[in-house]
């Protein structure tokens, strides 16, 4: 059973919107940790800020602070960041299939809406299927719901079948 994210991880998960972003974040941590022992203690913070985008590096610093980790101790930073990686991997994911290919701005807006509806720690995994016509198919925590226009049209056609067939003849 998945462990709920720690309070310290919440702020970082709030800043991660999509599964792609989460993967990129984990990879950046890997890159950072690969060279952590070759970094001077005093330079750890600077390298951290260079490795991650500003908002994320800020959140990481907060996370490190909240977990009482010394930013000048390589091993403590490594352990903290590995724990963070684990928490990101274990974060709740919502699968969202769309009928159109959204822009980055739209993706962020949609993810924001998802966080509002399902929880700030939820990361969205986006897929594209034009057959849906419109709307979306959502899978969250093992529950599936089809909110697509295709599904709605099917329901409509089923409900109005006799009426529509009478028009055809």
């Amino acid at each position, binding site marked *: 059973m998945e462990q709920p994210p720690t309070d310290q991880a919440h702020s970082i998960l709030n800043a991660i919107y999509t599964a792609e972003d989460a993967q990129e974040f984990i990879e950046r941590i890997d890159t950072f940790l690969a060279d952590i022992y070759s970094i001077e203690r005093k330079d750890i913070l600077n390298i951290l800020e260079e490795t991650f985008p500003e908002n994320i590096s800020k959140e990481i610093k907060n996370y490190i602070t909240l977990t009482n980790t010394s930013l000048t101790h390589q091993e403590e930073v490594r352990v903290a960041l590995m724990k963070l990686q684990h928490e990101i991997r274990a974060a709740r994911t919502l699968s969202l299939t*769309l009928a159109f290919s959204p822009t980055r701005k739209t993706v962020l807006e*949609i993810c924001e809406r998802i966080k509002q*509806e399902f929880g700030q720690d939820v990361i969205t995994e986006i897929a594209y299927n034009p057959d849906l*016509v419109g*709307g*979306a198919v959502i899978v969250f925590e093992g*529950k599936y719901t089809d*909110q697509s226009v295709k599904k709605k*049209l099917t329901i409509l056609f089923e409900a109005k079948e006799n009426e529509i067939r009478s028009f055809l003849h």
Partner: protein
Amino acid sequence: MLINPAIFILLVTAVLGLSAVILFIIQSYNHLIKKIEQAEREKLHLHDAVNQKATEILEHTHRQNTQVIEDVAKQAKELLSATQADKGSEADKLRNTLDALLIQQQKNTETMNDRFSKNYLEALEKLRNQDIKSFEKVSADAAEIATKEMQDFTKSLKGETIDAHAIMRERIEQEYAKAEEEIEKYKLEKLKMIDASVYPLLKNVVSLVVGKSLTQSDHESLVTQAIQDAAREITIKE
């Protein structure tokens, strides 16, 4: 290559009809030949009868002549012996008598010849008339038989043709009705298929039209709505 059964039956009927016609013609010729042979035999028989009669007449005439000559010779002999003494006058009388007998004999012979010729000509004329009549009869009989048989054959052929036509018509009508029924069945099946496929097609068309008519903003609104509905639904499920 397949032949239409109706055409095949028609061809078979035509071949059978032609065979029947040929058989009929052969039979008619055979009948005519028999009649001619019979007439030939009758003619020969008549010829034989005429010849026999002529021979009988000739023999009869010969016998009469011989008898006359014998009678004359006998009378001459009697006269010669009775008139031995008076040869001169009796000889003249005898000569006169012989001349008279000779003339009589000549007349008899001529009469006989005339009768024979007349009888022979009459017999020949009769034979000729009989031949002609016989041939005429044979021809008339043959023509009558041929006409009758031809009429019978025509009638029979007509009857068979009418029967064949009726059977063919009936079969064609049956086949036509069957074909119509099959076409109707096929049409209904196709209509059912079309009916079954039109509805999903319409659904697809509507989906495509709706999909194409949606703007980016519409999509975003629909997704927002979908997220809210999904959250509500999932919450209810929980």
